[in-house]
């Protein structure tokens, strides 16, 4: 909000901008109304458009915060936070949430189905009717199944829409195992590392923790509710936040201590903390005895990782590591090493997350107030369907590419490598739902090559993303404020159920995902369509069949909750989802697979002379590659820049604000230089979501640079998670 103030974006201007945009967006429909009036001459029976407040869920990022849409005369006038949604979003709504109106009233949004008429990426389209576009999609899907194999059709999607289930259902019913979701561009090594230890990926009890160490998670800008809010509200100043980041972010500004750690060395710091806690006897003896396995092995293994050793790796003084270890252990169990969310940093990421998990475990920070909490989820009735069985369909293309791969998610870096050489079989068709492959997946040139080799690409989205721009058919989905979406249980220490109901009618010819899936299914054959033969209302009734109160509360309060506080000790005496049923400090299953059963530190590749390590990261204005074109958010941050330390800028003879060329082994981008002390001299940083290719994103076309064009395709061999901080770049004047 402070940034809104500094930009003088007053409420009056905010609403003014909204109205202008609305005028633009609705002009087509008004012409139709005027024509109708001219025919009849009747102006006495006007129908007022609805004025109401509608409970729904935000769709601007992953959090799904509670929203009340203030609809006035059929127009979404304003979005307010839903106070009933306190358990998750603390009754707040961020800048992105507020800017949601501009998703609906966006002149750039997709309005009707489009079919490509020029070369791919040339931007020549013709408007098509839904029938023609859907026929073309089904025809190509059938042709690919006949000519190659059903597995030759890939389905890329991401979470957040509450409707992804239907897209994945279509993939399964069509018969392709190749669904490719977002986790390997985000948190799959986090899930893997923590689940290998605790049997699940828990959530830190930020609100009740007295001591938090945070690295790789810029929680004041990479917003996760309620953590981002809870983190900033220490209980009487008792809470201490230790923050490690090569950049001075807004989280650093809010922390008690900030250490500009050398990138890729977090594990050295964590292992040294474990070393101090074990050698000084600061661990929770009883907890370790009752709830863990492998402490003896850990004890022997950790001896080598002294604070003095770690200091040379991570550049944090040994005496500070000893002090922090002591403070952490003394505050335990109300102490957490916060694991963050995105974990696509280095190829050792799963083992680094294992180290984090082990540190939390040895001080007993598990299933207790202020510690790591196993998530809970409110059960909804499952929507099950029987997909047709097809013989001779290949296995997943990326099968066996990583030690542990999710069948539903796959691994983007591994999948693409194999698809580019058609090994073990070719991928020739691409269905995309919401995911923006060309912006999200490292090494854009490879993604473009992948798209080039496709016989057919269809993208379903709300704007002309880069991926849509390179597609053959583009289908417009209704936005999250126009859709009836099914209830979805949001897991966490205090679980909630959220859903979406339409605040206004879907504009132009946009349609909800379920309708689009049903129409494609119908064209693919009766056996597939039979699994889609239900309405959204019937689907929702089925989900809440066991507890209809869920729907009543969603309609009347915008949220369903069963409790307002976390429950502690739920797993006391219970078996965890690990092989031993206990917390596995030593992982026998990793040993069996030939992986390190305890985290072994390996130094990151040193930064070559005259090069810099490229870092990526979030900030509070944008969500990945999806919102940079939103007019309100664009107003706050119109372009990205390259952060460079003044010492290095001086060495290179570069000045603040000058355009520079950034070159990696796989790409070259040009953008503005920001000379700042907020970054280490060996690294550079640029915000995500700029340097786009699509001319359908009018605010950001030709503005800034694309990080995806520069990042090399590397990954963690255990989880398949992309490693986005292993790219080095050269900088020179543009």
């Amino acid at each position, binding site marked *: 909000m402070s940034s809104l103030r500094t930009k003088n974006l007053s409420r009056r201007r905010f609403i003014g901008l909204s109205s202008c945009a609305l005028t633009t967006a609705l002009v087509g429909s008004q012409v139709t109304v005027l024509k109708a009036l001219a025919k009849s001459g009747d102006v006495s029976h006007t129908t007022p458009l609805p004025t109401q407040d509608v409970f729904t869920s935000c769709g601007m990022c992953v959090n799904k915060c509670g929203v009340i849409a203030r609809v006035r005369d059929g127009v979404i006038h304003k979005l307010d936070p839903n106070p009933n949604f306190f358990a998750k979003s603390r009754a707040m709504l961020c800048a992105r949430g507020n800017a949601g109106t501009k998703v609906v009233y966006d002149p750039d949004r997709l309005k009707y189905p489009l079919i490509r008429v020029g070369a791919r990426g040339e931007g020549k389209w013709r408007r098509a009717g839904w029938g023609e576009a859907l026929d073309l999609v089904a025809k190509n899907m059938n042709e690919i199944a006949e000519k190659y194999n059903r597995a030759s059709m890939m389905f890329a999607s*991401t*979470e*957040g829409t509450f409707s*992804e289930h239907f897209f994945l259902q279509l993939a399964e019913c069509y018969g392709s*195992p190749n669904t490719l*979701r*977002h*986790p390997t561009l*985000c*948190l*799959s090594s986090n*899930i*893997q590392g923590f*689940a290998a230890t605790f*049997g*699940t*990926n828990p959530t830190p009890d930020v609100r009740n923790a007295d001591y938090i160490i945070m690295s790789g998670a810029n929680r004041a800008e990479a917003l996760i509710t309620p953590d981002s809010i809870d983190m900033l509200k220490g209980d009487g100043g008792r809470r201490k936040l230790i923050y490690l980041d090569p950049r001075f972010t807004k989280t650093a500004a809010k922390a008690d201590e900030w250490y500009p750690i050398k990138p890729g060395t977090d594990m050295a710091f964590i292992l040294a903390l474990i070393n101090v806690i074990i050698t000084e006897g600061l661990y929770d003896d009883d907890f370790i005895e009752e709830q863990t396995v492998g402490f003896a092995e850990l004890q022997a293994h950790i001896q080598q990782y002294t604070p003095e050793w770690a200091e040379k790796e991570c550049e944090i003084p040994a005496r500070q590591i000893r002090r922090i270890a002591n403070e952490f252990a003394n505050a335990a169990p109300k102490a957490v090493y916060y694991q963050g969310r995105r974990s696509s940093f280095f190829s050792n990421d799963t083992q680094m997350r294992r180290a984090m998990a082990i540190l939390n475990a040895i001080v007993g920070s598990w299933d207790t107030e202020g510690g790591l909490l196993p998530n809970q989820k409110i059960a909804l*009735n*499952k929507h*099950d369907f*029987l*997909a047709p*069985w097809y013989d001779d*369909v290949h*296995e997943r293309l990326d099968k066996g590419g990583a030690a*542990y*791969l*999710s*069948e*539903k*998610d796959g691994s983007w870096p591994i999948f693409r490598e194999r698809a580019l050489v058609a090994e073990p079989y070719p991928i020739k068709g691409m269905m995309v739902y919401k995911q923006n492959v060309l912006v999200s997946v490292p090494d854009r040139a490879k993604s473009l090559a992948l798209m080039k080799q496709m016989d057919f690409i269809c993208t379903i989205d709300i704007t002309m993303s880069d991926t849509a721009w390179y597609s053959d058919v583009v289908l417009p989905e209704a936005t999250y404020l126009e859709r009836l979406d099914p209830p979805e249980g949001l897991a966490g220490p205090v679980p909630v159920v959220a859903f979406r109901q339409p605040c206004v009618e879907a504009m132009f010819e946009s349609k909800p995902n379920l309708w689009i899936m049903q129409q494609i299914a119908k064209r693919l054959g009766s056996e597939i369509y039979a699994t889609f033969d239900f309405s959204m209302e019937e689907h929702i009734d089925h989900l809440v069949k*066991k507890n209809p109160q869920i729907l009543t509360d969603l309609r009347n309060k915008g949220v369903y909750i069963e409790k307002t506080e976390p429950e502690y000790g739920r797993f006391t005496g219970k078996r965890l*989802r*690990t*092989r031993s*049923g206990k917390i596995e400090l030593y992982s026998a*299953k990793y040993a069996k697979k030939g992986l390190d059963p305890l985290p072994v530190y390996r130094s990151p590749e040193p930064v070559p002379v005259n090069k810099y390590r490229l870092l990526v990261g979030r900030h509070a204005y944008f969500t990945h590659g999806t919102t940079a074109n939103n007019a309100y958010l664009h107003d706050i941050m119109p372009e990205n820049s390259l952060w460079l330390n003044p010492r290095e800028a001086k060495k290179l003879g570069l000045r603040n604000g000058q355009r520079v060329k950034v070159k990696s082994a796989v790409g070259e981008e040009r953008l503005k230089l920001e000379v700042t002390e907020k970054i280490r001299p060996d690294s550079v940083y640029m915000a995500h979501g700029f340097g786009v290719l699509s001319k359908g994103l009018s605010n950001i076309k030709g503005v800034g640079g694309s990080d995806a064009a520069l990042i090399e395709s590397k990954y963690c061999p255990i*989880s398949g998670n992309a490693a986005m901080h292993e790219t080095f770049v050269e900088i020179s004047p543009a």
Partner: protein
Amino acid sequence: MRILKLITLSLFLVACCSSFALAVEDGNSRKGKYLFKKNCKTCHSDGAEGGEITPLSKTMSQWDRFFKKSKHSAEAWEKFSGQDLLDTNQFLFDHAVDSDQPETCG
């Protein structure tokens, strides 16, 4: 007739004993998912007579023991081929509560 069926099934299980021991390696998990939904969910869904059963209802070793020791009633299983049972076993093993299949997001 019932006795004959039981004998047939027992003989079949004995014959397949070695392959069941390798169930986790030889079955087609995707086919097993289809068969589990088609054959098992009719009785083992929520509210149905067999009570709800999902892959998460057992650990990997429990699923293997369940199939190896033929813990299901003979009538229900006799119509399935050895390969069908192997595929179903593979699916349930691969998605058991302590399986290698990671959690996901969304």
